[in-house]
């Protein structure tokens, strides 16, 4: 570049100075947040401009005006976000703690929301599912509240009712459908296949369309035509490789050739599902005449415009008519009905709602904690904000900036939270109790994500506003002054104390819930089972009816099986019963003891059939008389063993051995059976249900196709499993190998819903108390640090260590005690919600409340100890020198 003449250079400088003036005047119009950058750009260009600096500088005015006009919000938001990210990055420890805290709260809430939403709220996957109703029978004499229905009653409902488009049936096992295990033979290794038997109209009533072929035709419900099967989609894929030409092929199920008529769609769900679906396969006589035995579950589709109440009223009338027509069997037999959705998800509702409440508390505590951190930080930033305000930033601008910052923080927490929720849901699906309906469908879906976004935004706003409120209300002058003299800034921090109180109260409620459930779970584990689950294994068998059609064949198989089992090395006892342990209600009947008055009979006595050695195998105690022997077979006098509950209730003070009873009301045709022994009560139906009067028949005198075998041996379950399978294979290679499990496993499995509830609640409580402790510590440490000067002065004036402890500790004590008292009140309300999940503990259990209070105080003590210690070691000299 050629140097210009001196006078020309002076003119150029003079012109450029004017140009700068124009630009700096114009800059006043430019929006504040981009003013500095704008100035730099224009000044640099003018610096480089040699010829027409002034003329070109005039362009700055329209440019500035344009920018003012197009002061777009999004750009400013990006600016705010950038600033927020910078501020957060400057304090990584704060950001990390806050983000993790939020991630826990948002993650837990989102996970539970997705479970609750999927299980409880989402409609069932059937056509017009709102019109589906479950029907059941109740009987106040027998204490039935949700009993299975008698087929003949259902037949009469179908005939008489006008409310339903159809009533479908399936065999019930408790609330669930009965799943039978069939042997699929013919090609390769025999396979165990699960099957649910349903009425022919079952799929029509549910509105389920098959993916291939068809579902059942009306006459396929009846024996003789019923060798047809519909495959579930997963089974079709697994076993037949998704062969599209499968319909019309035949497979051998339990030795019987069965035609495949259809494949269900992949989206079909019913209870726990099954590999294959089969018709009921019974006779018209059974359907029309079976009124004493109750074993059918019924689903109805309400006609359009018929309400549940109308249907209920109609069914009440029909049940009344039936009670009058069949007084012996139907007295006080009433019909209950409710939405199918309630039936499916109802039992899990209390636990899930408890979780939802608990997780809400976790979110609350984590929010309070972050708000607390923000407040502490807000105090530290008071000066910064005050300066910005003093320099002309509007109050709204500062608010918006702070809010953006907290939303950025919430977004980080929310993103982490979704990851937490995703992992948590995976865990729940993998390890959750199988009793949780629709558990396989739980996933972080669009609804859950929307929920997470909503929660994130809300938390961001909630905790974001707290420091704004504090900083702005403080006023500029105060903050500037306070910054200059830390000693003056002690003041009080009611907002932070309130937050800590809320955290402690929340943690208290969570802890009470967790301890109540934990104690209840412990009580369940301590239940005296009456049998010994340790050192025993069990498996279930279902003999194919084609190979073992008669009781004699079944008996022969059983004898050889038990003999083979007893010969296995290490097996001390082997026995069999018809029903597995802890598998829900046994069947029940009336019964009469000989030589009693005609109106003296029992209703609702439970039944099971057991082999010799069964009581020894499960470890139950025989109180009187003898066990069954090989002699109690067909042809021998019918023998029964009764349990102690029956003796206590019906034979108190009498010698039961040798007494005779039958399974009917007085005058019935049931044969007399003689009591040969009394067995101590054991929990046969469920852990949380007391043993009821039960009669055990000799399995040899009432053999059936279903068998549960129990072996007692000190050997590990895996060894026994291999041995049992070998024995079975020798006996009949066509019986698929059963799953052999230890009896303890079976007991544990029945406790899995409670274990799940307790674990989850414990986890929430742990998070809650951890966060509360951190919050408490944070506030106290901060307060103690801010009072270092004051403490120094007091010590210089002669205050001792005890005075310092009192000074710092008094505030902590106040916060903790208010928190505990508030928490106790809330916990009582929460306990009411939890009470339906409890066993052996009441929701006002004082041990729980005492434990929790103690625990909280201990944790609070730890959180307090550190700041107090630090305060005690304040060196007055150093503290005062800081002045």
């Amino acid at each position, binding site marked *: 570049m050629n140097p210009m003449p001196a006078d020309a250079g002076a003119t150029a400088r003079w012109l450029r100075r004017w140009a700068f003036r124009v630009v700096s005047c114009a800059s006043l119009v430019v929006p504040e947040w981009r003013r500095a950058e704008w100035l730099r750009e224009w000044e*640099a260009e003018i610096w*480089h401009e040699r010829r027409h600096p002034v003329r070109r500088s005039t362009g700055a005015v329209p*440019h500035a005006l*344009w920018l003012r006009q197009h002061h777009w919000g999004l750009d400013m938001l990006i600016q705010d976000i950038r600033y927020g990210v910078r501020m957060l990055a400057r304090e990584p420890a704060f950001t990390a703690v806050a983000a993790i805290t939020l991630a826990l709260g948002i993650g837990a809430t989102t996970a539970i929301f997705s479970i609750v939403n999927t299980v409880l709220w989402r409609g069932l996957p059937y056509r017009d599912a709102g019109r589906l109703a479950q029907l059941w029978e109740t009987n106040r004499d027998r204490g039935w509240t949700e009993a299975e229905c008698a087929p003949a009653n259902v037949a009469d409902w179908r005939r008489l009712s006008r409310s339903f488009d159809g009533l479908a049936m399936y065999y019930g096992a408790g609330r669930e459908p009965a799943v039978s295990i069939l042997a699929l033979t013919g090609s390769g290794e025999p396979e165990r296949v699960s099957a649910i038997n349903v009425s022919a109209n079952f799929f029509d009533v549910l509105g389920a369309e098959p993916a291939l072929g068809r579902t059942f035709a009306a006459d396929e419900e009846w024996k003789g035509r019923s060798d047809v099967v519909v495959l579930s989609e997963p089974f079709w894929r697994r076993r037949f490789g998704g062969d599209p030409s499968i319909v019309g092929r035949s497979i051998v199920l339990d030795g019987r050739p069965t035609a495949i008529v259809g494949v269900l769609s992949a989206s079909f769900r019913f209870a726990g599902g099954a590999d294959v679906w089969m018709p009921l396969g019974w006779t018209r006589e059974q359907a029309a005449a079976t009124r004493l035995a109750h074993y059918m579950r019924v689903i109805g589709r309400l006609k359009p415009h018929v309400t549940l109440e109308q249907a209920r009223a109609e069914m009440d009338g029909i049940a009344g008519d039936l009670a009058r027509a069949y007084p012996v069997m139907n007295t006080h037999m009433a019909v209950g009905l409710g939405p199918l959705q309630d039936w499916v998800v109802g039992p899990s509702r209390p636990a899930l709602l408890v979780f939802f409440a608990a997780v809400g508390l976790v979110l609350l505590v984590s929010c309070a904690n972050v708000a607390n951190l923000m407040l502490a930080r807000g105090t530290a930033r008071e000066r910064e904000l005050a300066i910005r305000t003093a320099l002309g930033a509007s109050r709204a601008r500062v608010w918006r900036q702070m809010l953006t910052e907290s939303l950025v923080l919430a977004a980080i927490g929310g993103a982490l939270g979704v990851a937490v929720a995703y992992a948590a849901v995976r865990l729940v699906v993998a390890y959750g109790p199988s009793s949780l309906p629709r558990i396989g469908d739980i996933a972080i879906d669009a609804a859950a994500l929307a929920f997470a976004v909503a929660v994130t935004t809300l938390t961001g706003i909630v905790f974001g506003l707290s420091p704004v409120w504090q900083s702005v209300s403080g006023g500029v002058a105060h903050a500037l002054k306070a910054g200059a003299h830390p000693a003056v800034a002690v003041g009080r921090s009611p907002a932070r104390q309130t937050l800590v109180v809320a955290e402690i109260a929340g943690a208290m409620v969570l802890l009470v819930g967790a301890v109540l459930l934990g104690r209840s779970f412990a009580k369940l584990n301590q239940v005296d089972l009456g049998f010994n689950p340790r050192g025993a294994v069990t498996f279930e068998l279902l003999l194919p009816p084609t190979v073992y059609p008669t009781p004699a064949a079944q008996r022969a198989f059983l004898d050889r099986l038990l003999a083979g089992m007893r010969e296995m090395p290490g097996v001390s006892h082997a026995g069999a019963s018809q029903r597995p342990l802890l598998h829900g209600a046994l069947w029940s009947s009336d019964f009469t003891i000989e030589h009693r008055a005609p109106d003296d009979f029992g209703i609702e006595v439970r039944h099971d059939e057991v082999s010799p050695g069964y009581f020894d195998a499960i470890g139950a105690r025989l109180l009187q008389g003898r066990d069954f022997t090989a002699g109690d077979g067909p042809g021998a006098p019918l023998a029964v063993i009764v349990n102690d509950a029956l003796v206590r209730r019906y034979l108190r003070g009498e010698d039961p051995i040798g007494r005779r009873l039958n399974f009917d009301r007085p005058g019935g045709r049931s044969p007399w059976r003689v009591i040969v022994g009394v067995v101590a009560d054991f929990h046969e139906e469920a852990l949380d249900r007391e043993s009821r009067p039960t009669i055990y028949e000799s399995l040899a005198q009432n053999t059936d196709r279903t068998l549960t075998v129990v072996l007692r041996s000190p050997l590990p379950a895996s060894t026994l499993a291999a041995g049992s399978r070998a024995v079975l294979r020798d006996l009949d290679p066509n019986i698929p190998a059963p799953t052999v499990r230890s009896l303890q496993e079976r007991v544990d499995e029945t406790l899995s819903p409670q274990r799940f509830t307790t674990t989850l609640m414990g986890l929430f409580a742990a998070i809650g108390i951890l966060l509360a402790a951190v919050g408490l510590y944070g506030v106290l440490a901060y307060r103690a640090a801010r009072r270092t000067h004051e403490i120094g002065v007091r010590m210089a004036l002669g205050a001792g260590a005890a005075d310092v402890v009192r000074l710092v500790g008094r505030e902590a004590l106040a916060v903790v005690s208010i928190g505990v008292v508030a928490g106790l009140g809330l916990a009582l309300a929460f306990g009411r919600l939890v009470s339906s999940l409890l066993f052996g503990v009441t929701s006002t259990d004082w041990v729980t409340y005492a434990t929790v209070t103690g625990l909280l105080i201990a944790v609070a003590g730890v959180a307090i100890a550190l700041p107090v210690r630090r305060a005690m070691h304040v060196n007055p000299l150093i503290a005062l020198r800081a002045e």
Partner: protein
Amino acid sequence: MSRPLPSPALLDVLQALAAGCRYGFDLIDATGLPSGTVYPALSRLERDALVSSRWEDARIAQREKRPPRRYYEVTAAGDRALRAGLLALKERERAARGRSRLLRPFRARG
């Protein structure tokens, strides 16, 4: 997402940038447009993400004892918009030429 085509002034600025101009005042020289047109055009292009900007490396500027300037660059989207805009312009020109030929056939031959 389709955006309205850039107006002629914007197109000029875009084209000058694509041709290698980098600073605001260079663009004024290249396009011959006044600074009061070029700068708002640049800001509009930047808002629409057709152009991106960054500050020149401060070390280079320092070495040359001058303030750092702001660089503008055409983004990929800007490149597409430019090509589409030029194409549309050519199209319009062709149409206009066609029309003029119809009106003045003899002149065109002669």
